[in-house]
């Protein structure tokens, strides 16, 4: 997301949108996923519902990256396989909201 991009003209990818957010990423992940349980999961709602697109599909497999996490808790609620062990980051780390 650069300042020249016009927000009202072309679609802006969520990865670019997330670049405006301020993070202080914790070294150790605050969320961990038991990927074994994703194998039998048909719906994989995390992929479309995580607002930060932390979950991605690659060759049918779920990939997870915690660094852009907005700490909303959605994945914890929607995961049908109970595959996510979820917590907040420690020590003031993670998303740093300013204008919301």
């Amino acid at each position: 997301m650069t300042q020249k991009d016009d927000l009202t003209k072309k679609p802006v990818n969520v990865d670019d949108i997330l670049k405006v957010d301020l993070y202080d990423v914790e070294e150790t992940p605050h969320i961990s996923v038991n990927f074994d349980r994703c194998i039998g999961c048909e719906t994989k709602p995390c992929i479309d519902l995580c607002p930060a697109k932390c979950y991605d599909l690659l060759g049918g497999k779920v990939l997870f990256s915690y660094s852009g996490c907005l700490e909303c808790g959605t994945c914890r609620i929607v995961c049908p396989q109970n595959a996510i062990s979820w917590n907040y980051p420690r020590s003031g780390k993670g998303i740093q909201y300013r204008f919301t």
Partner: protein
Amino acid sequence: MSTEHSTPNASPSTNRFDAIVVGAGPAGSSASFTLARKGFKVLMIDRGRRAGTKNMYGGRVYSEPLEAIFPSLRKDAPVHRWVKAERLSFVSDEGLTSIEYRGGESKSFTTYLPELVNWMRAKAEEAGALVATEVRVDRLVVEKEKVIGVQAGPDTVYADTVIDAEGVNRLLLEGAWQMNVPRQEDLAIGLKETIKLDAERVNQRFGLEDEGMAWILLGSVTRYIPGGAFVYTNRDSVSIGLVLFLSHAVKRTNGHISRLLEDFRLHPKLKHLWRDGELLEYSAKLVPEYWRGFMPRRLSGAGLLVVGDAAGVLLNNGMTIRGVDLAAYSGYLAAETFTKAHAEGDFTSEMLSAYGRRVEESFIGRELRKHNGLEYIRRNPHFFDQYPRLVNSGLGRIFNIGLESPTIWKALRGAQKDVGPDAWTAIKDMYKIGRTL
């Protein structure tokens, strides 16, 4: 060689408090401020780097309950704009219909929640509360079914009562009371973009003179998924966002959820309002949708009071979300209950259960019960698809005159054809809802 530092000497003055408040959001800060003002030794803990950095919402706060707690609110709170313009729009592929109300005196304002929360925290600190940020509480410490303190990492700190103000993801409460993870049906997901726009443009584009607008949009803006879209004008930015019932969103986003917000931002009839704006922040959070489902069976236990979103004291009628003021007021009521309990030296579950009754008897309980009637809207999917289409199609026929204008009757008949066989039920429903509102 000495290792005296590996465990700090937790002196009695630093590991025992009258009350510990977990969470410095609107609920926790209000409770801490109220308690500190009365002279109690209060510890408020938040996981954010500073208070406010973890708090997100839509954009408008109702001021009266807050003023009852923070008397100086109108003088020094970080208010962006006092809301004097309310707009409700029905959006569909057929068009967009808006109802707008502009009143005189304003009882709500727009602001950034991180700013407001940090202001509340400062008030609590000035009043004497000890505020420890950057600390995530890991566990409520329970002994013989009584909460006796909190644990964070290797440290435990004790109090007569813990006030749980941890917000919607109530991990601590789930742990202490062995509760289940909340159900999708009881939650909604909100996402929002804050777009920088200088104050002058905000004024021009929304027809304002430094006052604020709160705008709710229903219909195609959520791709007819139950929920709504919102626009709030801040001092020099606009907040645009969506709230979607989680149980519906799970099935119907049809692609990544952020695309819905993107489509809203790019909506041909709306995008000029934030043209040339600069994206400041993207945020997301869960919100209790159906309070009856989300609220725990009780709001207190021995040594424990639950306030704010964690307690499900939040009004969400599908259009307006009132969380901040209700959370704050519940924090205030918890502080009042604690005061009474402290006077009696009794922190049992019986004593503290007075808090739940206070909530029920206050405006919070009255409001929640009243809006239970609107559950009807929640459960009625037409509200979010057929109504907006019906309104727009009907009005389209009335206003788009060719040679001869149709009668209202004809217009409605036409609209019914556009929308489908359920349209009549929808018209009847709308009449009913109009009466409820």
